[in-house]
């Protein structure tokens, strides 16, 4: 029932979101990671806009605008402020090196197809069939979270998870109800503001934002 140009746009955008996540495993330059997040945000907004045209749903148009502003512009902008104070900062020592990370990403993509099998089996729909891409983005985000040690990388991991969830939501249900979507976007934006403030304070206090060196609290 869904076909034509809109579907092509949706497929392309979903692919861009996952590609952005995988590229995030490859790049160590923190500024490049932030641009990748901006790219994902733009892809998600495009996807919402395509769904808006296809479903003739004004609400989705609003959502597309909000996503573009929040995920495409505001969040990368906030993160850029953390990195700007420390130019040339890189993810120096991820716990897993890049080639191994990329292999892991491949495994995670396969895994997400397996996990999403019940969804695609029960409701075969061109959009539902793309849902594993969103799940894979979530899993790659979790992988970034556990293997990267820089504060900014960890925020990036969180946002990859979040973008993956947003992608699944658009593909499966054309987004959650408008008010919930607005509330959720606001929450995510505020979380990033909070994390940005914390990262900036940590830099001022410790002169770095390397979480490996924050080890006062543990059992």
């Amino acid at each position: 029932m869904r076909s034509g140009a809109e579907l092509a746009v949706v497929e392309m955008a979903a692919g861009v979101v996952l590609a952005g996540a995988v590229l995030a495993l490859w790049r160590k330059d923190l500024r490049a990671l932030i641009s990748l997040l901006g790219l994902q945000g733009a892809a998600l907004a495009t996807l919402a806009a395509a769904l808006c045209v296809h479903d003739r749903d004004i609400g989705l148009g609003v959502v597309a605008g909000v996503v573009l502003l929040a995920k495409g512009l505001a969040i990368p902008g906030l993160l850029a402020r953390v990195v700007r104070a420390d130019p040339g900062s890189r993810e120096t020592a991820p716990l897993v090196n890049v080639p191994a990370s990329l292999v892991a990403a491949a495994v995670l993509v396969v895994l997400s197809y397996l996990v999403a099998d019940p969804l695609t089996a029960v409701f075969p729909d061109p959009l539902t069939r793309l849902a594993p891409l969103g799940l894979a983005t979530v899993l790659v985000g979790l992988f970034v979270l556990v293997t990267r040690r820089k504060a900014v990388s960890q925020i990036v991991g969180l946002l990859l998870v979040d973008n993956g969830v947003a992608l699944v939501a658009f593909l499966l249900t054309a987004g959650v109800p408008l008010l919930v979507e607005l509330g959720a976007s606001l929450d995510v934006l505020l979380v990033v503001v909070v994390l940005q403030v914390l990262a900036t304070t940590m830099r001022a206090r410790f002169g770095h934002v390397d979480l490996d060196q924050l080890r006062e609290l543990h059992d």
Partner: protein
Amino acid sequence: MLLLTVLAVPLAAGALAAALPWRRAVGWAMVLANAAVLALGIALAVQADRRQVATGLDGALRADALSAFMVVVIGAISLLASIQSVRYLAVEIARGEHGARHASLYSLLVQVFVACMLAAVLSANLGALWVAVEATTIATTFLVGHRRSDKALEASWKYVLICSVGIALAFLGTVLVYFAALHVPGHAAGASVLDWTSLMRASHRLDPAVVRLAMALLVLGYGTKVGLAPMHSWLPDAHSQAPAPVSALMSGVLLTVAFYALLRFKAVADGTLGPGFTRTLLVIVGLASLLVAASLLLTQHDVKRMLAYHSIEHMGLIALGAAAGTTLAVAAVLLHILGHGLAKAVLFLASGEILIEEGTSEIDEIPALLSRRPLLGGIFGLGLVALLGLPPFSLFVSELNMVRGELAVGLGWAAGLSLLSMAVIFAAVMAHGRHLLLGGSDRSPSATTRLVGIPLAGGLVLCAALGLSAWPLQPLLYAAARVVVR
């Protein structure tokens, strides 16, 4: 109207605190507002007892017996916490640790935090519930870091990052439930699909495979905010670093507000899958939490960290009780939520007072509390007795009934394991408690201010009264349990 007032009162108080320069009177205004929340909660509970479901804001807010009960819990504990906040802020300002502006900001954030928890339990829509739970994380982050030490900063970072990841997974679970509900044939589309009432109506027709995946994500995701293993690692740090009144709120109610979300989703999933699937998930996370608490409690040196691990234990017990899922067991879970909330709040507030008076919360450095500060030491000791589940406190009754519920559904082995880890925890806490309360010291005794003594003793008396007779609450507990038990 009533429901809107419940949300508006704490927010208005917060706005007042932000607008006025901080004085003790402003702190007492917060106390008054939280007392009003408690009173409104009791009014809602009385309404719910007459089988009236209050709604507000065009049906966006809804208070059945379960919501009303949670409002009572939130009101009671924020009342206790806000009284201690007056003391905490006065001391911090007198010592020059913080300016008056910080006190205003603190009061504002605490009130927003309370309002977010209220919004979570009053939301008719399970998506809005998620938004409110996530908002509690945001409101509390700067409260955790309020003391602005290095440790507090690290704790708040861990807190916001881990909880946000967890809650993102819970959002994915919510999306999957929405997806399943949208595909129920003949089910009305639109924003109301995620409403609790329409989900419950449709629950037996949801796709089981999708709901299984959703429930796994929801248990993991909301479980993070509950402090259930394996996503508990933020909890000891955040609860030990936050100022005592904030720890009391976070440990006493925020954890169980997140658990409330799980209770709601469990009811939906049970309609689709039968009780078995969610029971298995809850047993796994519950036992894992008990194991974590039992193995790490003995090695703690800090009073507040000890209490934090104790919270993980109690959340594990609650998860097991909910896993049993009979009306009796869920009523016991709810009583445990209230009893644990009261006892844990009293203990955290007492530990805040210990920190103020002794300058440290290291267990080794504060021996013989009972002889040096009889009132404070007595409160702390009785609080520990309550938390260990000894009579006459209500935790004894609720733990007993949770175990009875577990036995009734063939979870006797899990109940046995939980009793075993409780025995280990009992021994560990007794070892810490004996040193803390009785150990030897040659310092001379000193008195405790009435501002601290009266409310904390009141909390303990209430907890004990509920243990002797849950009579005034019994109909409410059962009505609330029946909301989520089929």
